[in-house]
């Protein structure tokens, strides 16, 4: 059963050789060719010793040495071909793989992305695949060579003398057991080393990001002790792997030399019986030495196999993750309906969560109306608006946008209806203009400036070096939190969407700017339906409808006036923010 799965997995992986199938075969082929030429060398040397030297035929010897050079040259040519095809094959494979992973990530829904984790995905698509690439290149080039030399040497030995060659037949399985056995033993240990290294990494990272807190609590000594413990565990694991792999070279060395001893002894007996010549004994001896040299090389290379396999596995894991979200097929333009947004008894439970984040929410909003969402931290505000563009699917109930179930729309069509401003603003490396065109590639500079003005961002963009051409650094490090937030609001406005969603996206703005922003939004020419999530009463109190959430449940729905009458939770929030402030001012 397990084997079957593995076979299927290998098949799945092999398909990324598409376009490079020829290379995948020619690289090892030329490598084998080169190995064959190398295997002929001892034969030529034996001929020199047996024919050239006894007869003293210098011409013959020179001719044979010429053959040696020729073998070297042909070997060089075939190696170059092998290297070229190996590089092309390995790089091509990984280019395909990288592309497939990147595209596949785009197919995944957030439930899967949350499970896999962003930083882990980034390492998989970058450093993991790079490791696979160098590992694969090496395997295509060198891994083929060693077995061919080893088995080729054995076959050559058999052609020389059957009985003497039996030594090879005995030595090679022993050597295989040593090399493969030690490697297999190291693979799981190597995993352990990686895990412990991650622990050390985490500890270091925490002490950098938390330097202030650690010092404020005077925890330096304790943290150092914690680190020393993790570091010690890592060291122990590394030494353990090292101890096992340290046995590889001596064991192969002693085995091969033992085999040579038996070989020479056997050879002596066979020479006395007249079945062998001295030159052929030397040839056999040379083949055995070749095996030793190859094995030492192989042992050095084989260390990187577990690493390559582990990295490939991590990459394939991403490809094996299937999206839990099926795309709909409605791409039409007909989106007129009585309601712009409807939640019909919606509940949501996140995959890893133990309890529901939203419970039985029902709500309807007409086109052009505004909705405010308010409630304590963790009450499900963000979860609620995440259902609209299908970042997540409701576990039960139905979400409708313009009268149609969100699952019926194609994702592209659905998301094209929205301007979604997230809690944490995220801009991309590039000019202000490029960022503004992110969701609306066709927009003109006038459109952009209009949106920037409405988002209260034009006043500072105008002053930036280069204005719209000002370059935003990665991670928007050259912008303040408030500036980034206003730009991401503008980015949503440039799209002129049917529905605007603000997920607590004015938190970094001061009250004055927030008020100006609200005024500008209500004056937008394209009259969108607006959903605003906030913790500030002042931000949502002017909405046509306000929903108050607590623990994922609806505490009240209505206008500000209605809620002040009917919803004690809402009044409490209002009192704490507005009344007390006014009282203090008096």
């Amino acid at each position, binding site marked *: 059963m397990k084997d079957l799965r593995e076979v299927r997995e290998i098949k799945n992986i092999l398909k990324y050789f598409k376009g490079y199938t020829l290379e995948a075969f020619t690289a090892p082929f030329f490598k084998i060719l080169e190995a064959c030429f190398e295997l002929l060398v001892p034969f030529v040397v034996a001929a020199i010793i047996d024919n050239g*030297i006894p007869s003293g035929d210098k011409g013959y*010897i020179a001719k*044979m*040495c010429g053959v040696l*050079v020729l073998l*070297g040259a042909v070997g*060089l040519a075939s190696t170059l071909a092998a*290297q070229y095809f190996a*590089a092309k094959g390995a790089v*091509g494979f990984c*280019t395909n793989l990288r*592309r497939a992973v990147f595209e596949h*990530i785009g197919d995944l829904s957030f439930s899967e992305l949350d499970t896999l984790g*962003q930083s882990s*995905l980034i390492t998989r698509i970058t450093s993991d695949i790079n490791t696979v690439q160098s590992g694969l*290149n090496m395997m295509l*080039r060198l891994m083929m060579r060693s077995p061919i030399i080893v088995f080729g040497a054995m076959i050559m030995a058999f052609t020389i003398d059957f009985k003497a060659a039996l030594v090879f037949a005995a030595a090679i399985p022993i050597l295989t057991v040593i090399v493969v056995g030690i490697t297999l033993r190291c693979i799981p240990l190597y995993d352990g080393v990686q895990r412990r290294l991650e622990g*050390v990494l985490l*500890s*270091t990272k925490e002490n*950098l*990001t*938390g*330097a*202030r*807190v650690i010092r404020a*609590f005077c925890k330096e000594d304790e943290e150092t002790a914690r680190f*020393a413990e993790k570091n010690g565990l890592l060291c122990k694991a590394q*030494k353990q792997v*090292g*101890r096992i792999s340290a*046995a590889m070279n*001596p064991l192969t060395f*002693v085995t091969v*030399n*033992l085999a*040579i001893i038996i070989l*020479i*002894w056997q050879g*002596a007996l066979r020479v006395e019986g007249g079945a062998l010549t001295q030159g052929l004994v030397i040839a056999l*001896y*040379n083949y055995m030495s070749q095996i030793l040299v190859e094995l030492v090389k192989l042992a050095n290379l084989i260390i990187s196999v577990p690493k390559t396999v582990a990295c490939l596995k991590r990459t394939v894991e991403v490809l094996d993750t299937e999206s839990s979200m099926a795309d709909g097929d409605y791409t039409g333009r007909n989106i007129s309906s009585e309601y712009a947004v409807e939640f019909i008894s919606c509940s949501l439970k996140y995959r890893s969560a133990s309890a529901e984040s939203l419970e039985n929410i029902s709500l309807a909003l007409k086109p052009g109306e505004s909705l405010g969402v308010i*409630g304590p931290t963790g009450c499900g505000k963000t979860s609620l608006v995440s259902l609209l563009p299908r970042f997540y699917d409701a576990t039960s109930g139905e979400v409708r946008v313009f009268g149609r179930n969100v699952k019926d729309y194609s994702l*592209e069509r659905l998301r094209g209806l929205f301007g979604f401003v*997230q809690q944490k603003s*995220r801009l*991309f*490396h590039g000019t202000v203009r490029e960022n503004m065109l992110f*969701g609306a590639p066709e927009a003109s500079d006038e459109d952009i400036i209009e949106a920037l003005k409405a988002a209260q961002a034009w006043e500072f963009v105008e002053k930036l070096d280069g204005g719209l051409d000002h370059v935003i650094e990665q991670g928007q490090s050259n912008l303040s939190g408030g500036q980034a937030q206003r730009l991401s609001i503008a980015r949503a406005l440039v*799209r002129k969407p049917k529905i605007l969603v603000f997920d607590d996206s004015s938190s970094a703005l001061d*009250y*004055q700017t927030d*008020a100006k922003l609200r005024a500008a939004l209500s004056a937008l020419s394209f009259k969108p339906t607006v959903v605003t999530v906030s913790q500030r009463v*002042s931000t949502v109190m002017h909405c046509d409808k306000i929903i108050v959430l607590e623990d994922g449940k609806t505490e009240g729905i209505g206008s500000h006036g209605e809620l002040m009458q009917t919803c004690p*939770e809402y009044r409490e929030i209002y009192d*704490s923010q507005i009344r*007390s*402030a006014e009282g*203090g*001012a008096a």
Partner: protein
Amino acid sequence: MKKTVKSLLKLLGRSKAALALSIALAAASVGLSLYVPILFGNAIDEIVETGIKFDVVFGFLSRAGIIAAVTALLQWAMGMINNRITYDAVRNVRRLAFEKIEVLPLKYIDSHAYGDLLSRVISDVDQFADGLLMGFSQFFTGVCTIFVTLGFMLYINPRVALVAALLTPLSIFVARFVAKNTHSLFEKQSKIRGSQTALVDEMIGGEKTVMAYGYRARAEERFDKINRELETTTRKALFYSSLVNPTTRFVNSMVYAAVCLVGAFTVISGGMSVGGLSAILSYANQFTKPFNEISGVITELQNALVCAGRIFELIDEPAQPSDEAFGELPPIKGNVSLQNVYFSYTPERPLITDFNLDVREGRRVAIVGPTGCGKTTLINLLMRFYDVDSGVIAVEGKNIAEVKRRSLRSGYGMVLQDTWLRSGTVRDNITMGKPDATVEEIIAAAKATHAHSFIKRLPQGYDTEVGEDGGSLSAGQRQLLCITRVMLSAPPMLILDEATSNIDTKTEIRVQRAFEKLMSGKTSFIVAHRLSTVMSADIILVMRDGNVVEQGNHSELMAKGGFYAELYNSQFRR
């Protein structure tokens, strides 16, 4: 470079004996392993068709067997010792680096990217270990091999030996030539790789935005373009760099042929036995190999030295000034004063100039101002994360620059804007300031901050793992844990840096009440956006562009009609 080597030697100093032993073992095992072919050659010489002396052959072979076994033993011992030296050195270097991180001035940490410091502690150390120690042992055995084989060859036949010795270095020149030309390709490759990583980082990190704005197709297009560029460059770099081995091998096969030719002629003229030729051919093979490796090893060594340099740069970074000689603060009541304080992060941009403040015990100081006005600077100074340029900050009349940091910092309870939790359980995090707290105390503190209700609903309650950087908790929950942490340790002075900005207002009211309880009778410094939360303060410091521009209580400042009044009025203007 010289400094790096010096630091390196100091680091390895502790394992000096092991290092010497390793070198001795390497020399011995190389010598012995190369002696084996001579014995084999001798044995083969006895195998002539005209009658074999089996007892002599047996003698040579049994000696070869014993020597091979001893060599294997030496090799194994050397491997074990190198293993220990390497990983002990790695462990020690990491520990030194970590210890330094704990005592570095915060200025250093703030001004260096975490990623850079992390890669020094993790990947640079690994590269340094692999490259330097492995490289060193390879280099050493390589050099040993060259000299010993040369010696043996000279011993067997000087003329043939000279042929090998003179021709082999050719391969070094070939290798050098190839390596030089691939360097620029590798540089180009790592540059493209960097831009690809940056793109992936942005697109995956901003996946929600990418999806919400229908950017996916364009993202894939951009990715594809870079991916194809990378393919072309990598293919070239890989191919050209892999030329080194075959070309040097070709040079070697020519050397081999030459040795064979000269050797065979020598045998015919009676200058050497057939067994001798067999041995010398085997040596010629072994002799050329280290030459191929050495150029690679040298690059690796250089690379390792660069990595080592980066680590030692961190380790040798000056620590914050020692406070060993200073005493403790007297029992803290909460009197804090700042006299003629000047401070700036960079000399070109003066921030705080001639700042004076006197806070008596139990007073509440609010720090307000627009975003980016430098409110956290004051915290940096109060906690002595940074030292003042001039002037004095005193607690209980004692200059804080002249007491133990621990004594000052343990007097403060701090909740920062960026909540920081360490990996571990909820309980571990809450008890950070009071490791010996009882369950009752923990629950009482959590109840006081209204964290108890969400904690008890977590899968394992107080024993729930919070994950890397509190990953499994919401921003508000993380903040509540940070507040609980301070609540539990109950220090005499408090620093709250926008402590409640991540919490919804309803919880905030409750936390506020809890803080009221906590703050009663305690000196506290509060940084907040929300003016309503600081109106009850005794002293309000209004900051703008890094400096304190106004100082007084709410009504005084309102009456003054200055910057504070402007800030306040803007809050409810519609």
